[in-house]
């Protein structure tokens, strides 16, 4: 059974159920007969057909057409029907005279019957076919010159409006979500413009969309019509209601007429725009100043024009797409080239020319690299981006993430929906939080209003929601917190950009890797050299030392006292040499020893170190200060003990004050590793020497001043620190004192983020 929707029970949700092809009625300006073939007897007729033939409509049923009309005309009609399939759109097969009127007879076969629709020829008189053709050619010539799809549509609607003399012609595009968008409009002065308005998908329900693909032109000369019922209700050949899918006279849904009435429309004509066989959009023509019948010939011309538009819009859009695609490819190449040249990836992507903003259509973009953010265009704040990245790193495993509704997955995004309701993000490594992001604002921020958005909505009796403005409001609700969607080609381009960048990074890493390997090899060789050299050098040294001692033992009596002194000096010097070799050995071992990180209480570590230095501390009478308890850190205890030991002995040694002190402490900065320090009020170091104090065996003072030593302590301390991924630096004022700072890891060693 057909469901009939009346004005009383109108509700947008029942539009999708209404079977509008089974309207059971037609528009009143024409009449309909259906014939059984091959008998050519009438199976159904519209109520108003009776009047035309001056009989009761029921009297028509079962009659042979030849009983009603001129035999010759019926015969030629039958001949035409025999050689023409007449499937699909109704075709004019004859012009007949009835009741002193001329009628166009439109025929098509469907639902097991032959439809004959009779439309009166226009009262105002038909335009000549020749005139029509030349107008049509002119129109096509004009619109073909358009450069963009927008210009093309603008010209097309303008041509069509002059063609049919309607008050308004709109090109209406269906978006991916089924909603509609007035992309182009030609309207007479004095009427509200609808250009740019969006409508929710429910405004044009699925059954209507289906019919639009079947029947490419629908015309209602008078919206304020009373439908004429078809008698009998059911098609005798099927037992069901007559399927009026292709019928030009099909009565339309009250939903639709209600809608049009609310818009102040008196007559309408709608043409289908298809792209690759799918509904792309509509050309909707509205007349606001009384009924208006568009003659068959003009309609045919319009349909032809709409066909041209269908064909050309695909071409124009594809061209624009491929232009965009090509542009993306070129920009990608330029971006990667720029990065390769500068070597500054993040900077090039954000601030170079071209940059990320020249790549995808977006209002803003960001580069997140090693926790640093570079922004371009309209973007959320750095903190907001950081929390978004944090969230994505946990919840989005994909390399490319595109959404036009970030809030739906990441509710925090609501606070920056105005700049980033849509996000396209590419991530580089699963383990790192390095991202490129593009942002699109909430659609509502970008939609342009036509007319006055503050104009009050006209309330009509049939329900205000059926007005374009209220439809627009409804649509607005449906796209709240959404951005325009990311095109598949954009997502693809982002994916390709990611690969290109990765490849570039890989190439550079390979270069760096080679360099690093060479460096590492030379470091290892150096360490091995230091080890072997010092080890092997010791053997002869031992011999020299021992022989000088044996000589002293054996011959002291035969030697002059100065000779004895020389031999003693020799023994002493060999010992000095041994100390140096030991330091060298030790230095080479620093990078060989196995590290065993454990959680160390630095208070205990430092107190052990102080114990081991107790003799020197009491000799120097220095005051050792630890202003506040030291933290616990996870570290190789032997290593850090040695660093402290070296720095503290250094501090004790290079101090000429009468009241000496050494302070051991730490500083914490959020997000940075704990900085430990050893401070003294010693002799300090001249700025020009700051660089050289870490050079092995480099001494700033004579070996006998400040207690001697080999001059390897600081070198070893810094090497230990570096081995742990940390660094060591000095602040010093000559005569006042020095502070040796060091960290034992490149990232969070202390506090909450023990991450060594």
């Amino acid at each position: 059974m057909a469901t009939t929707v009346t004005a009383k029970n109108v509700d947008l949700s029942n539009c999708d159920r209404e079977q509008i092809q089974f309207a059971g009625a037609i528009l009143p300006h024409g009449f309909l007969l259906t014939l059984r073939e091959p008998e050519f007897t009438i199976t159904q007729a519209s109520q108003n057909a009776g009047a035309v033939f001056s009989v009761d409509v029921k009297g028509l049923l079962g009659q042979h057409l030849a009983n009603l009309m001129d035999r010759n005309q019926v015969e030629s009609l039958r001949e035409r029907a025999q050689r023409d399939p007449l499937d699909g759109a109704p075709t004019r097969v004859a012009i007949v005279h009835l009741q002193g009127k001329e009628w166009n007879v439109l025929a098509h076969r469907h639902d097991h019957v032959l439809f004959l629709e009779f439309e009166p020829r226009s009262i105002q008189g038909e335009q000549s076919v020749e005139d029509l053709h030349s107008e049509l050619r002119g129109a096509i010539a004009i619109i073909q010159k358009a450069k963009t799809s927008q210009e093309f549509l603008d010209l097309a609607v303008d041509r069509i409006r002059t063609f049919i003399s309607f008050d308004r012609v709109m090109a209406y595009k269906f978006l991916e979500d089924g909603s509609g968008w007035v992309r182009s409009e030609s309207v007479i002065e004095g009427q509200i413009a609808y250009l740019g308005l969006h409508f929710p998908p429910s405004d044009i329900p699925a059954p209507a969309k289906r019919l639009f693909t079947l029947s490419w032109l629908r015309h209602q000369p008078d919206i304020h019509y009373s439908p004429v019922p078809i008698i009998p209700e059911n098609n005798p050949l099927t037992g069901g209601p007559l399927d009026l899918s292709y019928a030009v006279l099909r009565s339309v849904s009250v939903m639709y007429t209600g809608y049009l009435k609310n818009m102040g429309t008196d007559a309408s004509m709608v043409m289908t725009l298809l792209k690759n066989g799918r509904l792309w959009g509509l050309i909707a023509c509205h007349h606001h100043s009384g009924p208006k019948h568009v003659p068959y010939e003009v309609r045919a011309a319009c349909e032809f024009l709409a066909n041209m538009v269908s064909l050309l819009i695909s071409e124009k859009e594809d061209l624009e797409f491929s232009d965009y695609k090509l542009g993306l490819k070129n920009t990608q190449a330029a971006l990667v080239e720029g990065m390769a040249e500068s070597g500054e990836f993040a900077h090039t992507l954000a601030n170079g020319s071209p940059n990320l903003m020249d790549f995808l259509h977006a209002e803003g973009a960001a580069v997140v690299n090693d926790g640093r953010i570079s922004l371009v265009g309209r973007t959320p704040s750095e903190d907001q981006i950081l929390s978004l990245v944090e969230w994505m790193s946990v919840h989005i495993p994909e390399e490319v993430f595109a959404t036009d509704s970030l809030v739906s997955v990441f509710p925090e995004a609501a606070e920056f929906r105005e700049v980033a309701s849509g996000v396209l993000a590419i991530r580089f490594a699963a383990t790192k939080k390095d991202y490129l992001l593009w942002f699109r604002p909430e659609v509502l921020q970008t939609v342009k209003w036509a007319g006055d958005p503050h104009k009050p909505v006209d309330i009509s009796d049939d329900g205000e929601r059926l007005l374009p403005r209220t439809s627009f409001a409804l649509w607005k609700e449906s796209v709240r917190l959404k951005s325009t969607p990311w095109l598949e080609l954009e997502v693809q381009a982002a994916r390709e950009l990611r690969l290109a960048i990765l490849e570039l990074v890989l190439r550079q890493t390979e270069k760096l890797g080679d360099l690093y390997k060479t460096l590492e090899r030379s470091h290892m060789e150096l360490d091995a050299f230091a080890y072997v050299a010092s080890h092997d050098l010791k053997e002869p040294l031992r011999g020299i030392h021992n022989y000088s001692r044996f000589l002293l033992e054996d011959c002291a009596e035969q030697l002059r006292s100065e000779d004895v002194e020389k031999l003693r000096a020799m023994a002493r010097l060999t010992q000095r040499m041994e100390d140096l070799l030991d330091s060298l050995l030790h230095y080479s071992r620093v990078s060989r020893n196995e590290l065993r990180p454990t959680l160390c209480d630095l208070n205990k570590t430092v107190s052990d170190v102080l114990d081991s230095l107790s003799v020197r501390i009491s000799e120097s009478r220095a005051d050792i200060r630890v202003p506040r308890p030291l933290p616990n850190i996870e570290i190789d205890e032997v290593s850090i003990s040695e660093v402290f030991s070296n720095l503290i002995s250094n501090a004790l040694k290079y101090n000429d004050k009468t009241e000496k002190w050494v302070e051991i402490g730490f500083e914490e900065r959020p997000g940075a590793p704990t900085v430990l320090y050893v401070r003294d009020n010693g002799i300090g170091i001249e700025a020009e020497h700051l660089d050289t104090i870490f050079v092995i065996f480099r001494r700033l003072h004579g070996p006998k001043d400040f207690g001697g030593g080999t001059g390897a302590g600081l070198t070893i301390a810094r090497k230990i620190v570096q081995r742990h991924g940390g660094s060591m630096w000095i602040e010093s004022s000559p005569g006042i004192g020095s502070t040796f700072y060091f960290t034992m890891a490149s990232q969070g060693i202390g506090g909450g983020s023990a991450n060594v």
Partner: protein
Amino acid sequence: MYRNDPILIVEDNDEDYYTVARVLGKFGSFPLRRCRQGTEVMERLTDKEAAIQPSLIFLDLDLPGKRDGRSVLAQLKADSRFRRIPVVIITTSASPSDVRNCFDHGAAGYMVKPVNLDKFVESIAGVVKYWFEIMTLPAKVEGAK
């Protein structure tokens, strides 16, 4: 353990051998035997005609040839005939893993050859005092390992 049993010094370096020999001389007239290679040690201990029964072995770790000191130590300690001979390592290697390994294998002492002769004399004095004065007391010999 008797002073008239020889002390075996396994050392390839002449200066070092001379030094050990000379320093030992400071503490008494010990009969000394020398091996220059690791492989020689077992030959000398098991020689059919003139096998020696050393009271003590000073063993260098870095030896030329197929057997270095580590392997000689392991060989001696794995052989029930020679297991009881105390072996004191004298070496240039101060590596913790060598020290640990040698003691694990049953070394009686471990000395790093110092350049400073006085330190070396002190160390040798300690070895001699322990093995030839304390350990020679008859009551303790059996109880000692």
